[in-house]
């Protein structure tokens, strides 16, 4: 009897040990499948570029362009690899960039396609972040330096330094455009800050994101097949002739719907004028060209800092503003279909991600489930950016209505 008890105990112990081995193994296997290689990402960047050139006149300038196969790797502040950013080049000039997700859990493979992006010198940002790390922590040891998305879509360099005295690790962030030091804490009213795009994208689970990635992979494979059948390959520059062949391909064009409203891009004049510049873009769309950003800010009742949506509505609705009294603010029902309905009614709308206002001026979708919104982003300060972006990041909208 005693021997049986001992045997049972040992058996239970053995099972526990076996569990210790196999449970982490299963988890590791599950994780492994979600990362995207640079080669896969390059293929997706090419096929999506071909697709947009074929179906969307916004991309007319991208004909004959090619993609630099060496991407800039952009990380999250928590060290996860987020995007491969590929430069789109034509006549030796960068005319755009394409961000491809480095992890299938982030959703649709191509996060955004941006026209004429403001350039930055990654090496300068890296150099400065290392320099600051060395000067701040004199006895510190530099552990790593990489380019990160510290406050989507803002990019910068992050250096991790270990203080040899205390053993603590510290992060130094430097913005890639301004070379300004960004505090390692969430943003406040008066200071920039950092947050994890990766964790934000995963907050609602990964199932839908994985499905979205798979759909974009299917489209990518389909475009690759069609391109090959027409005697081209996806990584070669796309000539006018080949695009004509793809554009007349009923299997591509019949499954795609796209619409763009002629909303001019206005760059925000200060770091907190995103809502103001967004309103200015919509005003210009409706033919009001005399409202300066400082005038709009004054109508919104700004007091030297950021604005809430009630203040923004005052401009959209007021007779001294845009005079659209039916304008409404919503935080639910932010679906792709409702965006399509609004654009089909020829009404651009304010589309905000957390802490940042932009304008939605169009859409593109396919019957396979690929969906993109066309965004006029007033950031960066002084230049703004024009992009095509996968949906799912908005937290509110203002529908501007009479």
């Amino acid at each position: 009897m005693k021997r049986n008890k001992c045997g049972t105990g040992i058996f239970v112990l053995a099972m526990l040990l076996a569990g210790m081995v196999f449970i982490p193994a299963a988890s590791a296997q599950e994780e492994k499948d979600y990362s995207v290689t640079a080669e896969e990402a390059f293929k997706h960047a090419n096929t999506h570029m071909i697709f947009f050139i074929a179906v969307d006149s916004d991309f007319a300038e991208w004909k004959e362009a090619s993609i630099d196969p060496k991407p800039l790797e952009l990380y999250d502040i928590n060290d996860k690899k987020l995007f491969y950013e590929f430069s789109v080049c034509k006549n030796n000039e960068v005319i755009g960039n394409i961000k491809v997700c480095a992890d299938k859990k982030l959703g649709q493979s191509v996060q955004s396609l941006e026209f004429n992006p403001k350039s930055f010198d990654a090496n300068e940002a890296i150099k400065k972040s290392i320099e600051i790390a060395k000067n701040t922590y004199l006895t510190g040891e530099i552990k790593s330096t990489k380019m990160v998305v510290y406050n989507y879509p803002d990019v910068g360099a992050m250096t991790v330094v270990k203080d040899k005295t205390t053993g603590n690790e510290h992060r130094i962030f430097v913005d890639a455009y301004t070379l300004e030091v960004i505090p390692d804490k969430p943003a406040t009213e008066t200071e920039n800050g950092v947050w994890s795009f990766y964790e934000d994208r995963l907050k609602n689970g990964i199932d839908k994101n994985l499905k979205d990635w798979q759909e974009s992979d299917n489209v990518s494979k389909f475009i690759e097949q069609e391109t090959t059948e027409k005697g081209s390959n996806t990584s070669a520059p796309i000539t006018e002739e080949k695009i004509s062949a793809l554009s007349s391909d009923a299997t591509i064009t019949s499954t795609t719907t796209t619409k763009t409203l002629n909303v001019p891009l206005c760059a925000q004049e200060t770091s907190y004028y995103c809502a103001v510049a967004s309103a200015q873009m919509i005003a210009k769309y409706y033919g009001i060209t005399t409202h300066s950003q400082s005038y709009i800010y004054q109508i919104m009742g700004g007091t030297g800092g950021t604005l809430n949506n009630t203040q923004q509505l005052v401009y959209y609705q007021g007779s001294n503003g845009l005079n659209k009294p039916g304008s409404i603010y919503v935080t639910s029902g932010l679906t792709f279909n409702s965006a399509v309905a609004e654009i089909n009614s020829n009404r651009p709308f304010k589309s905000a991600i957390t802490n940042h206002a932009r304008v939605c001026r169009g859409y593109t979708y396919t019957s396979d489930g690929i969906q993109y919104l066309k965004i006029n982003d007033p950031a960066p300060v002084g230049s703004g950016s024009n992009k095509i972006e996968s949906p799912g990041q908005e937290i509110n909208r203002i529908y501007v209505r009479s």
Partner: protein
Amino acid sequence: MSKLNKEIAIFIVFLLLIIVFWGIFIKTPDDTKTSVDTKTSVDTKTPDDSETPVQEARVAGLFIEFEYGITEQEIKVILENYSMPRNYNIDYDSDIMPKRYYITVDQNKRKDIEDELRKKENWTDPVFPNFKKGNNYIITVTEQAIEDKSFLELMEKNNLQVKSSFLCYIHFGDGSNNWSDPKNWIMGKDAIRIKNDLETNEKVLLVIPDYIEG
């Protein structure tokens, strides 16, 4: 030691060996993928003492849509029962946004009514999703619909009544628009908690956080 115990001991040693080999040969997911030539020098060691801030929104106030017919006194009582992290002012019957017209439809009749409403393009608006409230559904209808004779006939036929919501605005803090003062706003996660709590009240239709941007 009996023969049985020897066998068990050998089995445990065998399992321990598996663990050791597992630790040596299993690679992390990042290691298994092809690395690319990046334009920056990259060291993949992770800072281990840093907490990762997640995106945090700030909320200046709350739009609260109440059921038709509610009184200011009832609103006061409802709000007093919820813990608000800041002092606030209430703007009753706010005109910040146009009125919402809605009908309350029994769950069983919902699909039929929705199908009927879809027959006319401008009776409903795709930007207002229908939502569940208790055992009923709230369907938003447009101003054009309530001026349409055939719409009103449909309402009468189904014994439905069009109502307008009562909109209030809760302004956190001292009533100023100074968002650099933390007493004038709350964190996004607190706003979502209050929204979820308030929306369980039968008199509350919707709570919309007023986000700060810039």
